[in-house]
């Protein structure tokens, strides 16, 4: 197995021009200074009562529950999607990829409207669902759907990238040794791309946690049912800016903890070294 040993790693090219550091610092400040600005606004004396009010706790709990559920949905549908996009070859693949990634670039409100006109009571599929007695509008299910809609591309994108850079050598070897495609997928591919899958899932979770526009448009806003933390923040801002700031800080803290616990430097998995010339050529 011709992997890069620690000795070889030391020889990687690491020089960065000085001006790049300067611009990078400006970019980092652009993200960090506003965060500081918000932290400076937190009313620490009232912080605990503000975030432990009944409506705040309901919102936090709902956000964690729905974000976990939508992340699960993203894994269930996102892994096969990423595999198909990275490995299979068929007509219209590029167009499919572009369309799948669309929720990344359209405003979430637009996503919410699309869901509404599809699964809503008068929607494309919603009419038949209503006949069957299924009513998603104004339910927690609608929140999960809205979150999964905007978060799915994050997992697909992250996993597809890892699948491509991981290369297919080991899978090919396993296949020549008689492993069936499902076995290759389970024993070789998934373990190989696990870091990409985990970081994709974390991104999806974080995106779900922050979802606002699609939820508001598609699911509505009712305490304990559909009013997630971002919606609660927006509402509190109307009358109690201190509460809004405290909850914003809480949301950021939760996101930071989740990301820090699971999301590490996007380092290529070891066997990826084989694929490096390929990526450089692209």
């Amino acid at each position, binding site marked *: 197995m011709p992997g890069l040993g620690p000795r070889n790693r030391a020889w990687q090219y690491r020089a960065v021009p000085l001006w790049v550091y300067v*611009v990078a610092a*400006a*970019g980092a*400040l*652009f993200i960090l*200074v*506003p965060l500081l600005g918000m932290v400076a606004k937190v009313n620490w004396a009232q912080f605990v009562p503000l975030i432990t009010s009944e409506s705040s706790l309901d919102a936090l709990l709902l956000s964690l529950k729905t974000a976990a559920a939508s992340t699960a949905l993203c894994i269930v549908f996102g892994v096969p999607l990423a595999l198909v996009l990275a490995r299979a070859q068929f007509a219209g693949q590029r167009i499919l990829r572009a369309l799948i990634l669309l929720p990344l670039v359209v405003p979430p409100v637009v996503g919410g409207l699309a869901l*509404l*006109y599809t699964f*809503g*009571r*008068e929607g494309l599929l919603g009419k038949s669902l209503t006949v069957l007695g299924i009513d998603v*509008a*104004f339910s927690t299910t609608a929140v999960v759907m809205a979150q999964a809609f905007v978060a799915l591309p994050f997992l697909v994108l992250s996993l597809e990238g890892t699948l491509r850079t991981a290369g297919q050598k080991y899978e090919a070897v396993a296949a020549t040794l008689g492993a069936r495609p499902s076995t290759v997928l389970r024993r070789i591919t998934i373990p190989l791309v696990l870091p990409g899958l985990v970081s994709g899932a974390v991104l999806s979770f974080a995106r779900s946690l922050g979802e606002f526009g699609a939820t*508001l*448009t598609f*699911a*509505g*806003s*009712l*305490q304990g049912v*559909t*009013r997630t933390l971002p*919606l609660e923040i*927006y*509402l*509190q*801002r*109307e*009358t109690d*800016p201190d509460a809004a700031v405290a909850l914003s800080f809480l949301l950021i803290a939760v996101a930071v903890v989740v990301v820090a616990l699971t999301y590490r430097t996007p380092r290529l998995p070891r066997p990826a070294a084989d694929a490096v010339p390929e990526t450089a050529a692209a």
Partner: protein
Amino acid sequence: MRKMFRKPAAAAAAILVAVSLAACGGSAGSTGISAAPGSTPALSGTLTVFAAASLKPTFTELAATFEKENPAVKVSLNFDGSSTLVSQITQGAPADVFASADQANMTKLSDAKLVSGSPAIFATNVLTIVVPPNNPANITTFADLAKPGVKVVVCAAQVPCGAAAKSDEASAGVVVKPVSEELNVTSVLGKVTSGEADAGLVYVTDATTAGDKVKTVPLKLEHPTVNKYPIAAVSTSKNQEPAKAFIALVTGPSGQKVLGDAGFGTP
């Protein structure tokens, strides 16, 4: 491909740097409003009007009228929720005139010593029930909203339309259990026009704007909650004269005609 990316990337970097520099510079202040000091009797410059979202159709029309009457003045409009506008102005947004959908938000602005003179009430608004055109839940009275299984959408109590809904419910003795408490009145209307909800409580002016996308069912209250819309010039504005002229237009006969046609009540 490479070359194509170069320029936009450089531009984006320049913007980032500019923004971060501005952030580091602290409050740059509201410069750039172009009313010349010692202005002549003829009004000129750019007049920035911050107005509540429900005033969008009427104020857009009135701004055009004002520009026609004062060709040297350009009116720039910013519509949003009243509380959002107040926080923007207190954070230094360059507004010359503020028109609020309720008195509470105007009070917030005058508490911040940002109101010049005393605000004038120029319009009133009351709530009404709106239902989808086919009226799926067969709503004919306010009390019908309390029937089980009826999907009612209202504003959350934190926003003016929600506060009005709460007090109308109390005065009618109707206990509505909404399926959603939206963050603004536009969202309530949207849920009704899309057919998601069986009924919603919105302002009569919103119902007028929605036209035949909704059917209106009057609340028929003896003492409906009346929302009063105040307007005032912002004290930090350098355009006090055009601001006063615009307020005079809104509170004058032609302004009142436009507002009345849109369904607003007269103060």
